[in-house]
């Protein structure tokens, strides 16, 4: 562990949120995003990862009007305001779905599986869904 002290002397932990599910078929993606915002509001060191179908959460051009659900893809663009700057997308997951980084709603760091293993191993807390 390498806890560092945040401002006001609070302990800052490294939280990684791993998104593996597509956005609207289940509630997981939206709930996970809300958890990310809450962790960020508490000044934790937050990173967000998109692997497997989780990469579909970031696809540009989502329009949910006719399915009666909230389109939460614009909220990913607010992560920067919350000082969540570490967004990782696994290259293999992106390519397997025929997507490129240009088709995503936010700038992300596209990383290899090996790099992602390393980054994940450095976390204090990992939450996957």
């Amino acid at each position, binding site marked *: 562990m390498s806890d560092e002290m945040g401002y006001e002397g609070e302990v800052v932990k490294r939280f990684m949120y791993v998104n593996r599910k597509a956005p609207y078929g289940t509630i997981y993606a939206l709930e996970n995003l809300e958890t990310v915002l809450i962790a960020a509001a508490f000044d934790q060191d937050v990173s967000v990862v998109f*692997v497997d179908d989780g990469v579909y959460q970031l696809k540009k051009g989502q329009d949910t009007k006719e399915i009666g659900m909230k389109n939460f893809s614009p909220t990913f663009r607010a992560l920067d305001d919350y000082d969540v700057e570490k967004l990782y997308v696994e290259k293999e997951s992106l390519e397997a779905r025929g997507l490129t980084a240009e088709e995503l709603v936010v700038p992300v760091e596209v990383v290899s599986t090996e790099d992602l293993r390393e980054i994940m191993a450095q976390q204090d807390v990992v939450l*996957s869904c």
Partner: protein
Amino acid sequence: MLHTVNKSPFERNTLRSCLRLAQKGSAVLLMEDGVYAALSGTAVSDEIADRMDDLSFYVLGPDIAARGLSESPLIGGVQVVDYGGFVDLVVEHEASNAWL
């Protein structure tokens, strides 16, 4: 890190993603429907056997028993733990990642 997998490898890709992203030296505990992945002679057995050198694999005994699998052969090297062993694994590792 301790990774836990609780979904059947025949229904979900959870196990495969876990194996892909688990770093060398990590532990993987198969539990609930994830225990089906611990059996030898299945379509996914080789995926676990191939990682036996750099990961340690555990399976939760009570979930094996509940599914009528106590007599079924497991992949060589997979260690059976009880709930106490599960707790020990959590304590031994700095962080856990529950693949849901």
